[in-house]
């Protein structure tokens, strides 16, 4: 028997007058997944979510739930619920009445409603709030009541549109943990919308990165971070150095790239086949770059200072070396960020942990330094 995806979005487009808000979007979402739509503001995340919920109609394409099209099903009959950004709790109903609402709509018996509302309130750890009105609750409590209300009649799918953006940073972090645990416990599929990449990385099983109404990449957080498939994704997820160049030679998964103004470097474990001469970009995370004091003796790289201070640089070939100057530095407590100007004028962002005892800043602005990364540290994308 073939295992069906829970939700399948096939070639869905949505046009507002001349503006294409969604451009042939296709996604498969599995049952039990915590799936995130991530992208900058205005890229079409909310539009896609509203199409799934049924508040808006697609101009083309299909949406399948359990293999059956739900395009023609009005929102009130779709077995999925939405958590609105402002929670949308009914202000004239008590917390208990709010949570009872979907059960009442489904025609449940009074007795059953009562017990399930009580249960739902226990689950979000607010059993004493049953008789309160929403405007007497804090932001975090409203959030939890909205979740309880949406989950009380066990939908197949929960849609959450930037649910944490109205909370302060500390509360937001706490709610992230609660969401992860909740999703794990109840096993309902979440489709989560956010523009915050760290939130997405922390929460999701898989992330779809969106850009201008298109899906740029769908992958697990670690794959997305380590192997972005485009300059846009690399840039959007975490901090990333992007060095432009062209392919000189490719042997299997090992590519030699001529970086503009810097010279050749080796990149291995490349999964794509690049044509010789094609433009490409090397994406390098700051924490993958090692930085050391410049030594005038060529090859005597044992003076390198790195994350583990005494680390040495392995022989050339696996390792790319460049020299530069510290342009500026940013002390962040646990780490210090050094921006290094390379010989081609490009700024390279590097990180150094302040883990060595008694030491914080290893370099000063203007210091001549050496940077290095191993051939499997960077990831090559077409440019």
């Amino acid at each position, binding site marked *: 028997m073939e295992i069906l995806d829970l939700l399948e979005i096939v070639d869905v487009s949505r046009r507002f007058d001349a503006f294409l808000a969604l451009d042939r979007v296709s996604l498969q979402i599995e049952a039990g997944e915590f799936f995130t739509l991530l992208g900058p503001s205005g890229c079409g995340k909310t539009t896609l979510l509203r199409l799934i919920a049924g508040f808006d109609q697609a101009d083309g394409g299909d949406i399948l739930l359990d293999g059956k099209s739900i395009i023609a099903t009005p929102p*009130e009959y779709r077995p999925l619920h939405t958590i609105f950004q*402002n929670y*949308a709790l009914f202000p*004239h109903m008590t917390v208990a009445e709010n949570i009872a609402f979907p059960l009442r*709509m489904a025609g449940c018996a009074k007795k059953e409603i009562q017990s399930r509302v009580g249960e739902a309130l226990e689950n979000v750890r607010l059993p004493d709030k049953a008789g309160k009105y929403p405007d007497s609750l804090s932001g975090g409590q409203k959030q939890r009541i909205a979740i309880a209300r949406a989950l009380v009649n066990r939908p197949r799918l929960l849609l959450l549109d930037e649910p944490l953006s109205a909370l302060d940073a500390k509360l937001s972090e706490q709610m992230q943990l609660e969401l992860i645990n909740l999703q794990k416990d109840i096993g309902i599929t979440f489709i989560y919308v956010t523009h915050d990449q760290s939130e997405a990385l922390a929460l999701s099983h898989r992330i779809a990165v969106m850009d201008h109404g298109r899906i740029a990449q769908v992958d697990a957080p670690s794959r997305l971070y380590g192997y972005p498939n485009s300059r846009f994704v690399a840039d959007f997820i975490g901090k990333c150095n992007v060095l432009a160049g062209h392919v000189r030679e490719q042997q299997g998964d090992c590519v030699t790239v001529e970086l503009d103004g810097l010279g050749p470097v080796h990149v291995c474990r490349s999964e794509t086949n690049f044509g010789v001469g094609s433009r490409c970009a090397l994406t390098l995370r700051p924490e993958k770059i090692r930085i050391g004091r410049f030594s005038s003796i060529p090859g005597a790289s044992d003076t390198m200072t790195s994350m583990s201070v005494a680390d040495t640089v392995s022989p050339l070939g696996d390792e790319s070396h460049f020299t530069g100057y510290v342009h500026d530095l940013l002390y962040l407590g646990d780490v210090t960020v050094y921006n290094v100007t390379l010989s081609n004028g490009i700024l390279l962002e590097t990180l150094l942990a302040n883990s060595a005892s008694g030491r914080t800043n290893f370099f000063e602005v203007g210091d001549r330094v050496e940077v290095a990364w191993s051939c499997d540290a960077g990831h090559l994308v077409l440019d």
Partner: protein
Amino acid sequence: MPAIWCWINTMRKTMQGKAWHKYLLSLPPMVYLLIFFAAPTLIMLFASFRYAGEYGGLAPWYLHEEGRLTLDLTLENWQRLLGTDIYLRLFLKSVGYAVMTTLICMVMGYPLALTIARSDRKSRDLLLLLVILPFWSNFLVRIYAWMIIFSPVGALTRMLNGLLDLVGGGPVTLMYSPTAMIICLVYVHLPFMVLPLYANLEKHDLDLLDAAQDLGAGKWRRFWLITWPLSLPGITAGSILVFIPVLGMFAIPDLLGGTNGIMIGNVIKQQFMESRDWPFGSVLSIVLTVTAVAVVLLGARLGQGRGGRG
């Protein structure tokens, strides 16, 4: 009056504090209400216990008898009110007209207010303008216009009678009928229902309706469970604004009501103008005022309920 004592008290207390200049701002309206509302009400209350003057107005409230000053007050006016059921029936009839007008205004005004509140910005302004457009011409002029429309030779009556003739019904006259009065009362007061309702409905968070739909509520349940309860404060405000003026209305019954159409407002006017019996006019006015205040208090309580939230 208690409001004024309360105000003077807080005034005294806060004068010692720093926020006294806030109370300075409320001084002009307070003085205005004192002179033109509180004082006349007290004078009227007093007048209701006095005798009517021989040529109208009020008789003196004291007598010089053998050099002694005696009060000359009476309960006769109040006894006259309670001695017959004419006035009770008139009050009930007026309340009936007011309730009827309020209900019709509500049924007609709600969809109108909702339509305006849910239309886009541009047409919203235009529609609101149309609602208040009648205010641009004088109230009496508009009632005279209705007299022309309702007159037996007017287009409306003739068309109606023409249609009735086809189905074999007898001719009707609209003029001087309760129907004419209700139509005109509704016409005049509809904006007072629509405007507060619009002001309420326009503020509703439309996400609530999406949320209700998302949680399984169809069109009708979305209206009755979300929109309607949240609009109760608007309905209350509109109803008060319609009910109170209709209750005391005399111009429309005068012009369109005929002999059977008189309301309590007409009788009050009669007492002061034609009968020149000020004390009894005062009695009726006080009862009307108390009824109106009672309605406002009841409305305020209703509007404060759960619908008052949001």
